[in-house]
């Protein structure tokens, strides 16, 4: 367990140290700030909504880019710089190494979400507006989505050992995961049974990110009351565990 913590914190430190992280963080600040400028464009018509939604969207977008790039980069960098051999030559199992990298990534996401949310809340406060508790649930749901994406990216990078392919696969799954209801709509229109069953299988395999997309309705009490955080948590745990299990499974037999 101690080793797992060490790898996680080392991974966090590595993530935070990269120049890419700093650039993206500054860029996200700029984008959240643009939300404040957009409120000016909307004038007196719903400016608070614009600022809130822009900020939340930018936090999610930044986290997604961070997870995609860092998960891909850090693992392959370890292989290329051969630092992975130093870690694995110690009494640390490959499973612990993968889990350590994963939790390190999640810690980075937590730190980033925290920093960006503070900045966003500050802008909201300056504008003399407020946020409800649903805002924090929404931010938590963004984190849950990142847990799944991170596990998928890690699986993709370990099994495919290619930066671009891993990033593309994860991005496509992210898109498909937000497109599930439209996918079902298409499935219903398909007349050829084989194609229909293939798409249906695909539909039930891919993560349904709409399930965690609280940011699309957090200002609507009716829908919020139907949203179950426990179910969202369970869903995230299952998906992350499956992909982490697969990652460990592939990594165990991998020739480095």
């Amino acid at each position, binding site marked *: 367990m101690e080793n797992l913590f060490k790898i996680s914190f080392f991974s966090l430190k590595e993530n935070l140290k990269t120049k890419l992280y700093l650039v993206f963080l500054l860029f996200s600040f700029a984008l959240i700030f643009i939300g404040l400028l*957009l409120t000016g*464009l*909307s*004038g*007196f*018509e*719903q400016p608070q*909504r*614009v600022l809130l*939604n*822009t900020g*939340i*969207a930018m936090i*999610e*977008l930044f986290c997604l880019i961070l997870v995609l790039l860092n998960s891909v980069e850090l693992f392959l960098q370890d292989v290329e710089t051969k630092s992975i051999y130093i870690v694995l030559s110690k009494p640390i199992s490959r499973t612990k190494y993968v889990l350590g990298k994963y939790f390190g990534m999640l810690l980075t996401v937590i730190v980033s979400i925290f920093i960006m949310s503070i900045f966003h809340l500050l802008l909201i406060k300056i504008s003399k507006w407020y946020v409800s508790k649903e805002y924090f649930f929404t931010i938590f749901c963004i984190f849950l989505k990142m847990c799944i994406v991170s596990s998928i990216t890690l699986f993709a990078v370990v099994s495919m050992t290619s930066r671009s392919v891993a990033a593309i696969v994860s991005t496509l799954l*992210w*898109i498909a*995961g*937000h*497109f*599930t*209801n*439209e996918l079902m*709509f*298409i499935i219903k229109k398909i007349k050829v049974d084989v194609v229909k069953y293939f798409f249906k*299988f695909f*539909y*039930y*395999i891919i993560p*349904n*990110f*709409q*399930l965690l*997309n609280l*940011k*699309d*309705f957090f*200002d*609507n009490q*009716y*829908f919020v009351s*139907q*949203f*179950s955080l426990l*179910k969202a948590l*369970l*869903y995230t745990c*299952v*998906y992350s565990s*499956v992909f982490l*299990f*697969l990652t460990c*499974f592939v990594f165990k037999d991998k020739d480095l």
Partner: protein
Amino acid sequence: MRKIFICLFLVIVLIFINLVIKNPVGLYDEKYSIFIHRLPLEKYFVVDSVGFILGLRKFVSDIAWIQLLQYYGGSAPEEHCCSEGICFTEDVCHAEDYFEHITKIQPGKYKRFIDYCRRVVILDPLYSYVYFYGVGSLAWNLERPDEALELVDIGLRNLEFQKEDANSDYWELVKYQQAIYYKLGGKYLEMIDKLKEIVDAGKAPNMVKAILANLYKKYGRYEEALLIWEELLLSGDPEYVERAKKQILQLKKLIEQKI
């Protein structure tokens, strides 16, 4: 063989979890599907689609909302403001007191206004304010009650889940619908009462309040018009502050003359 069994087991786990935990919200069921509605403004298709597939539907709807305001606030130079076959030049259309007479002129102006509204509510079907703003503008500013009713129908379909709650936006939209029917039937006093109900509910855009104030003025109910303009002045909305100041002065004079 062991590997295949493990993979099969994991696939079953994923299918099982997707079958057990369905979208608890059902927000994006078929009714809200982007394929059914088809995005109405071709020039924004790429932006809308990218936002949609990245799961940033609400953010893109805000961008669409700002673009709607810019379109409606702009001069729409390709169009003229016409009334009963008489077209006005652009300087008349944009004279300072233009909005006061806006109910009489310019049917046919801002032709794509309803498309802009539809675009926003396709991206975010729960954005009630767009229905209120769009319906108010179409019915009373742009003199296109048919299009206003079309937008009301979209709104009522999308907000149907609120039907049980008497104070919901669904019933607020029904009030707009009733007011439009009164207008179409020529029952202007009933229409004004309905608009008053809408304004009193507190969810109406400032634009609807201004419309009601203008109607009060038109029907000689200066005191009530004055109250609304005073409220608009206090709101600090830059769009209305100057006009509110002017109207307040005018109305005070009219009240004095009346006495």
